[in-house]
């Protein structure tokens, strides 16, 4: 296993009371596996990933549980050690590529610096490598692109430059948080292709966060669906999409309008909206919106269980 996360809990002390953003998340990730994490905004996708990367700096945060990277416990590891890991073996891409780029330097310079920070090679060798990397992420004219500043690139080109930077360290683990959400579908298609290529050529394991079920179904080997800080369903892509179990997964899939075939007159919508973590309902957090809620759901919190395809739902457990 590249990554083993066990019973991860993250809460924040806020003026309005404690917010439990992540409430007992566990998962494993194997070499060259792509794990898709789907959920609506506020479901805890970003926070769980930031916790894994040791990037939650908020002093009001409380992190519990275990995060093992290649067998080594990361919770409690000194910040310096974590930083070394992040530069050398773990790479990250975010929704806004500018979080990884500086406006004042050319992208060629920035990627070269990244390479030289971790490897002892000459400037000209690093520049050669940058050109290769930019070609690998499909810049039509990589040599010319090296001398461009971020603001001279489109959003899709910037994101590709960040991916080139991520590739430069040959990462064992790539963590991508909604990297295509702000991009056009045409550009997104190219980025998803790159992620697949990265997995194939560099054997990187990938955690890919998105709110788009379509993206997950095209990219991921395994999928985790999150709701209100918990995993509500987990399974292989095939299990999850051809046999969704959790009422939330089903409803979410049902509410996506079809791209082909007959149009339904009305979309099967989920009533209400995702709950505030400050005022989580008693019992199952999906309860107030669930079409099949019954007594047990009002008081108990359903467990996910250990099966490879599992849903945290009393109905499913009972069936």
């Amino acid at each position, binding site marked *: 296993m590249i990554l083993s996360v066990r019973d991860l809990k993250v809460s924040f002390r806020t003026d309005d009371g404690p917010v439990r953003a992540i409430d007992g998340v566990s998962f494993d990730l194997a070499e060259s596996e792509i794990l898709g994490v789907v959920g609506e905004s506020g479901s805890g996708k970003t926070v769980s990933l930031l916790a894994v990367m040791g990037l939650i700096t908020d002093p009001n945060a409380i992190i519990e549980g275990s995060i093992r990277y290649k067998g080594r416990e990361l919770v409690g590891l000194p910040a310096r050690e974590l930083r070394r890991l992040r530069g050398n073996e773990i790479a990250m891409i975010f929704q806004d590529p500018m979080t990884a780029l500086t406006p004042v330097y050319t992208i060629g310079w920035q990627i070269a610096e990244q390479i030289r920070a971790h490897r002892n090679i000459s400037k000209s060798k690093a520049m050669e490598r940058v050109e290769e990397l930019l070609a690998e992420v499909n810049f039509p004219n990589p040599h010319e692109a090296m001398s461009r500043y971020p603001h001279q690139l489109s959003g899709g080109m910037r994101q590709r430059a960040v991916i080139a930077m991520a590739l430069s360290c040959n990462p064992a683990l790539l963590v991508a948080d909604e990297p295509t959400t702000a991009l056009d579908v045409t*550009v997104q298609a190219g980025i998803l292709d790159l992620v697949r290529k990265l997995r194939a050529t560099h054997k990187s394991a990938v955690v890919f966060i998105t709110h788009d079920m379509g993206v997950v179904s095209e990219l991921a080997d395994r999928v985790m669906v999150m709701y209100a800080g918990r995993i509500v369903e987990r399974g292989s892509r095939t299990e999850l999409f051809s046999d969704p179990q959790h009422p939330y997964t089903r409803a979410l899939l049902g509410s996506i309008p079809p791209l082909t075939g007959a149009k339904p007159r009305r979309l099967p919508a989920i009533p209400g909206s995702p709950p505030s973590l400050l005022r989580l309902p008693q019992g199952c957090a999906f309860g107030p919106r669930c079409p099949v809620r019954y007594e047990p759901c009002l008081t108990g919190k359903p467990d996910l269980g250990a099966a490879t395809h599992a849903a945290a739902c009393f109905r499913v457990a009972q069936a």
Partner: protein
Amino acid sequence: MSGEMTDTDRPILETRSLGKRFSIGTRFSAEGRRTVHAVDNVSLTVRRGETVGLVGESGCGKSTLARCLVRLYDISDGQLLFEGDDITSKSLSELRPLRRRLQMVFQDPSASLNPRRRVGDLVAEPLRIHGKLSSREISARVAELFDLVGLQPDHVMRYPHEFSGGQRQRVGIARAIALNPDLVVLDEPVSALDVSVQAQIVNLLADLQEKLNLTYVFIAHDLSVVRQVSTRIAVMYLGSIVEEGPAEEVFASPAHPYSQALISAVPVVETTPGGTRKRIILTGDVPSPLNPPSGCRFHPRCPIAAERCRTERPEVVEYRPGRKVACHFPTISPAILPAHG
């Protein structure tokens, strides 16, 4: 597809070779003053009761066209007709009676709602400005509007921040329909919403259209949402419409290479493993409208571009009633051609 041919066929809004240019930079900046042709030569007809969906990549001019349609922008070239009446260069006071009938809904509901006003007030605002109603009549109308868009009556006293994104968009919609408009232009009305909430708003818009006999122009970057909502689709590329036709038809058999690439790029949930659709991945990025390519503006990215495409700009051709395309080599699917002809 309605029986009342006369009503549904009558254009409510029409553009003729409409263009919108912006000047950017100053004469003191490095490049001097330059012109962006954000919308270029658009001829589009919107008929009563239909929903026209505008799709295309970011920056292709959807929002600019939308704003021209309701005269939030002055029009640089061509004409805009409302019920056959040329309103291209009508003054603001001449437009006043029309304002009521043409409304717009924006993407970010919170940006268009004053955070310090109660939502009841916000919905009442257009009624106060345009209507001649007493305050009792206004309250009654606000209550009616709240009911129409699915907000609870006691919500009137709340402030926008006390609402979820979906509820705020309901407020935005209530404001837009307050004056009984004929046409509502919706610019990414569901893009900022969660997937589970998006479907509620899509349904609400469909219900309101039916109840209030509304005509929509609808913009969204999610193509499956646009298909769901629209009767017709116009695909835009770099300021111009490159393809137009009935929504389901265009999605099933796009004629323009750009529409084909765009639609093929939409990720869909595959329930059957291995059932992969053919994907056309475009190389290159959207060119800048500051210096658009010669000939067909899509040629640098088009997988089937030929010599002719580099020099000669294709005209929009209506190759079948209701289906238009601007391409020298369109894919005209034989399966859907009329049986003879």
